[in-house]
């Protein structure tokens, strides 16, 4: 199914969000958790259609939803590769070779930081501290932490992601 044919907010997600809003006195509070679910279920990034459908569900203006989504680094507002690799470049990781991990990640994937590889397989991003500082350096592949990395580990870690 192409993105344009896909219903922007499937019934299952609607039902989930209807349950979610019950946890809060005001509906909008469920917006960020809902955007997470949309990104997980609807192709890895938040399309304008998805944001509009969320706006409609939450009774907000689309521009408000866009304003919220664009504030948070975990939300992607542009297409991403099939897999997203993030490398922490903050202080504890930087002290233990984060830049080498990033360089190796770029070499293995063929993508620059902030870009997508030509084959569409990987997006590579720089990350701020992920709370894995005592297991530095680290990378995050599709949300899973890989810690205590040596440069030589990167190809193996990324090799599993087709």
């Amino acid at each position, binding site marked *: 199914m192409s993105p344009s044919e896909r219903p922007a907010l499937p019934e299952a997600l609607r039902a989930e969000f209807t349950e979610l809003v019950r946890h809060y006195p005001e509906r909008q509070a469920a917006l*960020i958790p809902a955007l997470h679910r949309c990104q997980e279920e609807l192709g890895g990034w938040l399309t304008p259609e998805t944001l509009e459908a969320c706006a409609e569900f939450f009774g907000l203006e689309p521009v408000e939803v866009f304003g919220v989504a*664009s504030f948070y*680094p975990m939300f992607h507002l542009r297409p991403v590769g099939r897999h997203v690799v993030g490398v922490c470049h903050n202080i504890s990781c930087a*002290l*233990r070779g984060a830049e080498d991990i990033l360089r190796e990640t770029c070499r293995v994937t063929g993508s620059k*930081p902030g870009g997508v590889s030509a084959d569409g397989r990987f997006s590579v991003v720089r990350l701020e*501290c992920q709370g*894995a500082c*005592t297991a530095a350096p680290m990378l995050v592949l599709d949300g899973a932490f890989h810690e*205590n990395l040596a440069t030589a580990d990167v190809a193996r870690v990324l090799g599993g992601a087709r």
Partner: protein
Amino acid sequence: MSTEPTKITSPTKTALPPKITSPLKREIYLLSRVGLRDSHTLPVYKAHGGYAALEQVLTGGFTPAQVIQIVKDSGLRGRGGAGFSTGLKWSFMPDPAKDPRPRYLAVNADESEPGTCKDRVLMEQDPHGLVEGILLACFAMRVKTAYVYVRGEYRLSHERVAAAVAEARAAGLVGAKILGTDFACDIWMHKGAGAYICGEETGLMESLEGKRGHPRPKPPFPAGAGLWRQPTTVNNVETLANVPFVITRGADWFKSLGTPKSPGNVLIGISGHVERPGVYELPLGISARTVLEECAGGVWKGRKLKAWIPGGSSTGLLPAAKIDVAMDHDSIREAGSMLGTGAMIMLDETACTVRAMQVIARFYEHESCGQCSQCREGTEWLHQIFARIERGQGRMEDIELLSSLANGMAPAKTICALADAAAIPTHAIVKNFRAELEEHVRLGRCPLDVERHAAELTDLVPEGAHA
């Protein structure tokens, strides 16, 4: 009481397990269950003293005021960074007889101060300890709804705490009629989406309401107008995890650990250039040298220590000569820095402090929410100046400029303390490592590890930059 060293394998995919240990002979409690098989489950938690404090309070005829008094007497101070008295904070919540509005507890599990990864250990390995702490705090403040705001990247923490809440709910420990009493309390999980500023308590509340994480001016304070403008308390995960122990063992026991003004044990993370990075449970007031040498196995590769950060990236860099300072709020302040989140970051003799500050300043620039011009512009300038000094393009006047920029940003010149978090380490490097800044300017390059720094990809703009 376990006094054995505990060592756990992180359940996340790791090449080598992060070491989470407590040294022999010192009393530990926060991590006492960590390392047990299935430590995150209700049966294991209960078999090791779990929910005894809740039962004691609910069936032992304690009043909410009594619980607050015990926590006040214990001297427990917040573990989120500011070190404010927990009992005192709880007592700011209005009397429900006079102010019947709904009230909330927001649990700060946003842990994103660089260097800090202690709350994650508690949530992944001992989530019921947090749940019990939340229930006790809610009882004391007469709160019926708590939200656990977990940073979005902490997938396993979120899963484990959510599962613990579900187990507790099924066992009659969360929800209505808890343990058959009239006490009712709901706990809801809430996932953040990766912005450091949402760890600041008012930024957290805005974010929880579904907005951008823009901190709010104070006053009004959260106890008067917090989440949805209702009375709210924000507490850190580790703070709450202390509470069940304070209740079952008492204020005097708690004060027997740590120092008179900073009682109890604290989770200290040590990262950077050490042999065994890890999260260790230690009494407040432990010497930083003990943490470095005994717990972390000393500086790695047989090198010497050059500089260290005592409590996360917003606390000032200290020279190696200060390594004998005691890890408690007052001693570290006297030494010219702050305890912060107890996240020690160690730099060996080959590290460049200017390079370290460049990384730290880049972080604050990236994370400034942009509401205050001093912070938005100041963090950008600081980053640029540190970067140009590091590249060898700085001028001697830049050093004065760093100080005057930092003076323009803090203290208390902006809506929240993120500006302070950038200004404080700036002052520290100018004071403690001025010679290294000057050497960069004089030589027109970084005196250390030139090739490596030149090869780094520092000029590429990170994706997801906001504000």
